[in-house]
Protein backbone atom coordinates (compact mmCIF):
# COMPACT_ATOMS: atom_id res chain seq x y z
CA UNK A 1 0.00 0.00 0.00
CA UNK A 2 2.90 2.37 0.54
CA UNK A 3 3.10 2.67 -3.22
CA UNK A 4 0.13 5.02 -2.99
CA UNK A 5 2.81 7.47 -1.82
CA UNK A 6 4.66 7.03 -5.11
CA UNK A 7 1.47 7.76 -6.98
CA UNK A 8 0.68 10.73 -4.73
CA UNK A 9 4.07 12.35 -5.48
CA UNK A 10 3.38 12.00 -9.19
CA UNK A 11 -0.22 13.23 -9.00
CA UNK A 12 0.46 16.17 -6.66
CA UNK A 13 3.36 17.33 -8.83
CA UNK A 14 1.48 16.97 -12.13
CA UNK A 15 -1.62 18.67 -10.74
CA UNK A 16 0.39 21.59 -9.34
CA UNK A 17 2.31 21.83 -12.59
CA UNK A 18 -0.92 22.08 -14.55
CA UNK A 19 -2.33 24.67 -12.13
CA UNK A 20 0.79 26.80 -11.75
CA UNK A 21 2.31 26.82 -15.23
CA UNK A 22 -0.06 29.50 -16.59
CA UNK A 23 0.84 31.80 -13.67
CA UNK A 24 3.76 34.09 -14.44
CA UNK A 25 4.79 34.66 -10.80
CA UNK A 26 8.20 33.09 -9.98
CA UNK A 27 6.79 31.69 -6.74
CA UNK A 28 4.32 29.63 -8.78
CA UNK A 29 6.83 26.78 -8.84
CA UNK A 30 5.39 23.23 -8.82
CA UNK A 31 8.50 21.73 -7.18
CA UNK A 32 8.37 24.23 -4.30
CA UNK A 33 4.68 23.69 -3.60
CA UNK A 34 4.84 19.89 -3.93
CA UNK A 35 7.56 19.89 -1.27
CA UNK A 36 5.60 22.30 0.95
CA UNK A 37 2.47 20.17 0.53
CA UNK A 38 4.16 16.96 1.69
CA UNK A 39 6.10 18.61 4.52
CA UNK A 40 2.86 20.09 5.90
CA UNK A 41 1.06 16.77 5.37
CA UNK A 42 3.64 14.80 7.35
CA UNK A 43 3.97 17.48 10.04
CA UNK A 44 0.24 17.62 10.73
CA UNK A 45 -0.82 14.00 10.23
CA UNK A 46 0.25 10.70 11.68
CA UNK A 47 1.15 9.34 8.24
CA UNK A 48 4.56 7.73 8.17
CA UNK A 49 7.29 9.77 6.54
CA UNK A 50 9.52 6.67 6.55
CA UNK A 51 6.99 4.86 4.37
CA UNK A 52 6.86 7.86 2.04
CA UNK A 53 10.64 7.80 1.64
CA UNK A 54 10.63 4.06 1.05
CA UNK A 55 7.96 4.34 -1.65
CA UNK A 56 9.62 7.27 -3.37
CA UNK A 57 13.09 5.77 -3.71
CA UNK A 58 12.26 5.22 -7.38
CA UNK A 59 12.33 8.98 -8.03
CA UNK A 60 15.55 9.52 -6.11
CA UNK A 61 16.97 6.58 -8.01
CA UNK A 62 15.98 8.16 -11.35
CA UNK A 63 17.90 11.34 -10.49
CA UNK A 64 21.26 9.74 -11.24
CA UNK A 65 20.46 8.56 -14.81
CA UNK A 66 18.82 11.96 -15.40
CA UNK A 67 22.11 13.67 -14.51
CA UNK A 68 23.97 11.28 -16.83
CA UNK A 69 21.49 12.17 -19.61
CA UNK A 70 22.52 15.83 -19.26
CA UNK A 71 25.47 14.82 -21.45
CA UNK A 72 23.10 15.09 -24.40
CA UNK A 73 22.22 18.84 -24.24
CA UNK A 74 25.86 19.42 -23.35
CA UNK A 75 26.97 17.60 -26.51
CA UNK A 76 24.38 19.38 -28.64
CA UNK A 77 25.74 22.75 -27.46
CA UNK A 78 29.33 21.71 -28.06
CA UNK A 79 29.97 24.08 -30.97
CA UNK A 80 28.95 27.12 -28.91
CA UNK A 81 30.86 25.85 -25.88
CA UNK A 82 34.07 25.35 -27.85
CA UNK A 83 33.96 28.95 -29.14
CA UNK A 84 33.50 30.34 -25.65
CA UNK A 85 35.39 27.84 -23.50
CA UNK A 86 37.66 30.45 -21.88
CA UNK A 87 34.70 32.73 -21.09
CA UNK A 88 32.85 29.76 -19.57
CA UNK A 89 35.81 28.79 -17.38
CA UNK A 90 36.43 32.38 -16.19
CA UNK A 91 32.73 32.99 -15.44
CA UNK A 92 32.33 29.72 -13.53
CA UNK A 93 35.54 30.22 -11.52
CA UNK A 94 34.55 33.75 -10.49
CA UNK A 95 31.03 32.48 -9.74
CA UNK A 96 32.36 29.72 -7.48
CA UNK A 97 34.58 32.14 -5.52
CA UNK A 98 31.66 34.59 -5.12
CA UNK A 99 29.35 31.73 -4.06
CA UNK A 100 31.64 30.38 -1.35
CA UNK A 101 32.96 33.69 0.01
CA UNK A 102 29.62 35.56 0.07
CA UNK A 103 27.73 32.61 1.55
CA UNK A 104 30.17 32.16 4.42
CA UNK A 105 30.70 35.89 5.07
CA UNK A 106 26.98 36.68 5.29
CA UNK A 107 26.35 33.66 7.54
CA UNK A 108 29.28 34.75 9.73
CA UNK A 109 27.42 38.01 10.47
CA UNK A 110 24.69 35.95 12.16
CA UNK A 111 26.52 33.02 13.67
CA UNK A 112 30.12 32.02 14.37
CA UNK A 113 29.24 28.33 14.62
CA UNK A 114 31.97 26.61 12.61
CA UNK A 115 29.94 23.53 11.77
CA UNK A 116 27.24 25.80 10.34
CA UNK A 117 29.75 27.76 8.24
CA UNK A 118 31.30 24.55 6.91
CA UNK A 119 27.84 23.29 5.97
CA UNK A 120 26.96 26.53 4.17
CA UNK A 121 30.26 26.67 2.24
CA UNK A 122 29.34 24.29 -0.64
CA UNK A 123 25.69 25.43 -0.89
CA UNK A 124 25.73 26.14 -4.64
CA UNK A 125 26.92 22.74 -5.88
CA UNK A 126 25.10 19.47 -6.40
CA UNK A 127 24.39 17.69 -3.09
CA UNK A 128 26.76 14.69 -3.46
CA UNK A 129 29.74 17.05 -3.97
CA UNK A 130 28.51 19.38 -1.21
CA UNK A 131 28.13 16.52 1.27
CA UNK A 132 31.59 15.18 0.45
CA UNK A 133 33.19 18.61 1.00
CA UNK A 134 31.34 19.23 4.27
CA UNK A 135 32.05 15.74 5.60
CA UNK A 136 35.75 16.08 4.86
CA UNK A 137 35.90 19.42 6.70
CA UNK A 138 33.97 18.27 9.77
CA UNK A 139 30.68 20.03 9.07
CA UNK A 140 27.23 18.42 9.11
CA UNK A 141 26.63 16.70 5.72
CA UNK A 142 22.86 16.33 6.13
CA UNK A 143 22.56 20.04 6.99
CA UNK A 144 24.68 20.84 3.93
CA UNK A 145 22.34 18.76 1.76
CA UNK A 146 19.29 20.52 3.19
CA UNK A 147 20.84 23.96 2.48
CA UNK A 148 21.78 22.85 -1.05
CA UNK A 149 18.15 21.95 -1.77
CA UNK A 150 16.94 25.28 -0.38
CA UNK A 151 19.42 27.20 -2.53
CA UNK A 152 18.42 25.15 -5.59
CA UNK A 153 14.76 26.02 -5.01
CA UNK A 154 15.64 29.70 -4.60
CA UNK A 155 17.50 29.67 -7.91
CA UNK A 156 14.81 27.69 -9.71
CA UNK A 157 12.03 30.00 -8.48
CA UNK A 158 13.67 33.39 -8.87
CA UNK A 159 16.71 32.84 -11.10
CA UNK A 160 15.13 33.43 -14.48
CA UNK A 161 13.16 36.46 -13.24
CA UNK A 162 16.23 38.05 -11.65
CA UNK A 163 18.29 37.46 -14.79
CA UNK A 164 15.61 39.06 -16.95
CA UNK A 165 15.45 42.09 -14.62
CA UNK A 166 19.23 42.38 -14.80
CA UNK A 167 19.13 42.36 -18.59
CA UNK A 168 20.91 39.05 -18.88
CA UNK A 169 19.22 38.01 -22.11
CA UNK A 170 21.90 35.82 -23.62
CA UNK A 171 20.54 32.23 -23.30
CA UNK A 172 24.06 30.89 -22.68
CA UNK A 173 24.67 33.41 -19.87
CA UNK A 174 21.28 32.51 -18.37
CA UNK A 175 22.13 28.80 -18.39
CA UNK A 176 25.58 29.31 -16.86
CA UNK A 177 24.19 31.54 -14.11
CA UNK A 178 21.46 29.00 -13.25
CA UNK A 179 23.86 26.04 -13.15
CA UNK A 180 26.51 27.92 -11.19
CA UNK A 181 24.12 29.27 -8.54
CA UNK A 182 21.52 26.51 -8.26
CA UNK A 183 23.20 23.25 -9.45
CA UNK A 184 20.92 20.42 -10.68
CA UNK A 185 17.62 21.95 -9.51
CA UNK A 186 18.47 25.15 -11.39
CA UNK A 187 19.55 23.06 -14.37
CA UNK A 188 16.22 21.20 -14.43
CA UNK A 189 14.51 24.60 -14.58
CA UNK A 190 16.94 25.91 -17.22
CA UNK A 191 16.31 22.86 -19.41
CA UNK A 192 12.58 23.66 -19.32
CA UNK A 193 13.28 27.13 -20.74
CA UNK A 194 15.34 25.99 -23.71
CA UNK A 195 18.01 23.57 -24.94
CA UNK A 196 20.70 26.26 -25.01
CA UNK A 197 19.98 27.25 -21.39
CA UNK A 198 19.87 23.56 -20.44
CA UNK A 199 23.18 22.75 -22.13
CA UNK A 200 25.06 25.64 -20.60
CA UNK A 201 23.49 25.04 -17.21
CA UNK A 202 24.67 21.43 -17.16
CA UNK A 203 28.10 22.69 -18.22
CA UNK A 204 28.14 25.13 -15.29
CA UNK A 205 26.92 22.38 -12.95
CA UNK A 206 29.91 20.19 -13.82
CA UNK A 207 32.57 22.89 -14.08
CA UNK A 208 31.57 24.74 -10.91
CA UNK A 209 31.15 21.45 -9.01
CA UNK A 210 34.72 20.48 -9.83
CA UNK A 211 36.17 23.96 -9.16
CA UNK A 212 34.32 24.11 -5.82
CA UNK A 213 35.80 20.75 -4.77
CA UNK A 214 39.28 22.03 -5.71
CA UNK A 215 39.01 25.47 -4.02
CA UNK A 216 37.07 24.43 -0.90
CA UNK A 217 40.22 23.57 1.14
CA UNK A 218 41.32 27.24 0.98
CA UNK A 219 37.99 28.44 2.38
CA UNK A 220 37.94 25.65 4.98
CA UNK A 221 41.36 26.84 6.16
CA UNK A 222 40.02 30.37 6.74
CA UNK A 223 36.86 29.13 8.47
CA UNK A 224 39.01 27.07 10.84
CA UNK A 225 41.15 30.15 11.59
CA UNK A 226 38.05 31.96 12.89
CA UNK A 227 37.62 29.29 15.51
CA UNK A 228 41.23 29.29 16.65
Amino acid at each position, binding site marked *: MIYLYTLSTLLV*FLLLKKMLTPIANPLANP*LLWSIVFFIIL*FSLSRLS*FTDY*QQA*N*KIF*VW*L*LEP*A*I*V*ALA*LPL*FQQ*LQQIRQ*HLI*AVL*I*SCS*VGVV*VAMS*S*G*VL*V*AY*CFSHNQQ*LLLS*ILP*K*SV*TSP*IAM*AITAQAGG*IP*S*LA*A*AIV*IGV*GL*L*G*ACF*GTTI*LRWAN*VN*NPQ*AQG*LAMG*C*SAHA*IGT*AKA*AEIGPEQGGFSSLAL*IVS*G*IITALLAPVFIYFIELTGA
Partner: protein
Amino acid sequence: MVSLINIIRSGLIITLFLMLGKFINYVSALPIPSAILGLILLFLALNLRLVKVKHLTPTSSLLLNNMTLFFVPVGVGLLQHLPLLHSFWLAIVVSSMVSTLLVLLTVGWLYQRLVK
Protein backbone atom coordinates in the same frame (compact mmCIF):
# COMPACT_ATOMS: atom_id res chain seq x y z
CA MET B 1 7.72 -2.16 -31.67
CA VAL B 2 10.56 -0.04 -32.94
CA SER B 3 9.91 2.49 -30.21
CA LEU B 4 9.99 -0.20 -27.49
CA ILE B 5 13.39 -1.32 -28.73
CA ASN B 6 14.52 2.31 -28.70
CA ILE B 7 13.32 2.77 -25.13
CA ILE B 8 15.20 -0.33 -23.97
CA ARG B 9 18.36 0.49 -25.92
CA SER B 10 18.55 4.10 -24.74
CA GLY B 11 17.74 3.06 -21.16
CA LEU B 12 20.48 0.46 -21.20
CA ILE B 13 23.10 2.84 -22.61
CA ILE B 14 22.39 5.48 -19.96
CA THR B 15 22.43 2.84 -17.20
CA LEU B 16 25.72 1.48 -18.52
CA PHE B 17 27.37 4.90 -18.30
CA LEU B 18 25.99 5.43 -14.79
CA MET B 19 27.49 2.05 -13.79
CA LEU B 20 30.85 3.04 -15.31
CA GLY B 21 30.68 6.27 -13.28
CA LYS B 22 29.94 4.28 -10.12
CA PHE B 23 32.83 1.94 -10.83
CA ILE B 24 35.33 4.79 -11.30
CA ASN B 25 34.00 6.55 -8.21
CA TYR B 26 34.46 3.31 -6.26
CA VAL B 27 38.00 2.48 -7.37
CA SER B 28 39.38 6.04 -7.36
CA ALA B 29 39.68 8.52 -4.51
CA LEU B 30 38.09 11.32 -6.59
CA PRO B 31 35.58 13.41 -4.60
CA ILE B 32 33.37 13.55 -7.72
CA PRO B 33 29.91 11.91 -7.62
CA SER B 34 29.22 8.84 -9.81
CA ALA B 35 26.45 10.53 -11.80
CA ILE B 36 28.76 13.42 -12.76
CA LEU B 37 31.46 10.93 -13.82
CA GLY B 38 28.83 9.08 -15.89
CA LEU B 39 27.81 12.38 -17.50
CA ILE B 40 31.44 13.18 -18.42
CA LEU B 41 31.99 9.66 -19.83
CA LEU B 42 28.80 9.78 -21.92
CA PHE B 43 29.79 13.23 -23.18
CA LEU B 44 33.18 11.83 -24.26
CA ALA B 45 31.52 8.82 -25.92
CA LEU B 46 29.22 11.14 -27.89
CA ASN B 47 32.24 13.13 -29.03
CA LEU B 48 34.12 10.01 -30.06
CA ARG B 49 31.02 8.87 -32.00
CA LEU B 50 30.86 5.70 -29.88
CA VAL B 51 27.29 6.65 -29.04
CA LYS B 52 24.96 8.49 -31.40
CA VAL B 53 22.38 11.04 -30.28
CA LYS B 54 19.56 8.93 -31.75
CA HIS B 55 20.64 5.97 -29.59
CA LEU B 56 19.84 7.98 -26.46
CA THR B 57 16.27 8.98 -27.31
CA PRO B 58 13.59 8.54 -26.06
CA THR B 59 14.90 7.69 -22.54
CA SER B 60 17.06 10.83 -22.43
CA SER B 61 14.12 13.13 -23.16
CA LEU B 62 11.91 11.23 -20.70
CA LEU B 63 14.50 11.73 -17.96
CA LEU B 64 15.38 15.32 -18.82
CA ASN B 65 11.78 16.49 -19.19
CA ASN B 66 10.81 15.06 -15.81
CA MET B 67 13.94 15.83 -13.81
CA THR B 68 12.16 18.39 -11.63
CA LEU B 69 9.67 15.73 -10.48
CA PHE B 70 12.52 13.53 -9.21
CA PHE B 71 13.56 16.27 -6.78
CA VAL B 72 10.23 16.23 -4.91
CA PRO B 73 11.07 13.41 -2.43
CA VAL B 74 14.59 14.83 -1.96
CA GLY B 75 13.02 18.15 -0.99
CA VAL B 76 10.48 16.51 1.32
CA GLY B 77 13.53 15.06 3.09
CA LEU B 78 14.11 18.60 4.45
CA LEU B 79 11.53 17.49 7.04
CA GLN B 80 14.21 15.48 8.85
CA HIS B 81 16.43 18.53 9.27
CA LEU B 82 13.79 20.97 10.51
CA PRO B 83 15.30 21.13 14.07
CA LEU B 84 18.79 21.98 12.73
CA LEU B 85 17.38 24.40 10.16
CA HIS B 86 15.27 25.95 12.91
CA SER B 87 18.23 26.80 15.13
CA PHE B 88 20.22 28.46 12.34
CA TRP B 89 17.43 29.61 10.07
CA LEU B 90 18.28 33.32 9.93
CA ALA B 91 21.93 32.78 8.98
CA ILE B 92 20.95 30.15 6.40
CA VAL B 93 18.10 32.10 4.79
CA VAL B 94 19.92 35.44 4.53
CA SER B 95 23.21 33.99 3.30
CA SER B 96 21.45 31.74 0.75
CA MET B 97 19.46 34.63 -0.66
CA VAL B 98 22.28 37.18 -0.80
CA SER B 99 24.79 34.72 -2.16
CA THR B 100 22.47 33.19 -4.79
CA LEU B 101 21.60 36.68 -6.05
CA LEU B 102 25.28 37.67 -6.24
CA VAL B 103 26.26 34.49 -8.12
CA LEU B 104 23.41 34.82 -10.63
CA LEU B 105 24.32 38.43 -11.40
CA THR B 106 28.11 37.94 -11.44
CA VAL B 107 28.04 34.91 -13.74
CA GLY B 108 25.31 36.31 -16.00
CA TRP B 109 26.87 39.73 -16.44
CA LEU B 110 30.47 38.52 -16.64
CA TYR B 111 29.76 35.91 -19.32
CA GLN B 112 27.64 38.35 -21.33
CA ARG B 113 30.49 40.89 -21.26
CA LEU B 114 33.16 38.32 -22.12
CA VAL B 115 31.44 36.94 -25.23
CA LYS B 116 30.34 40.31 -26.59
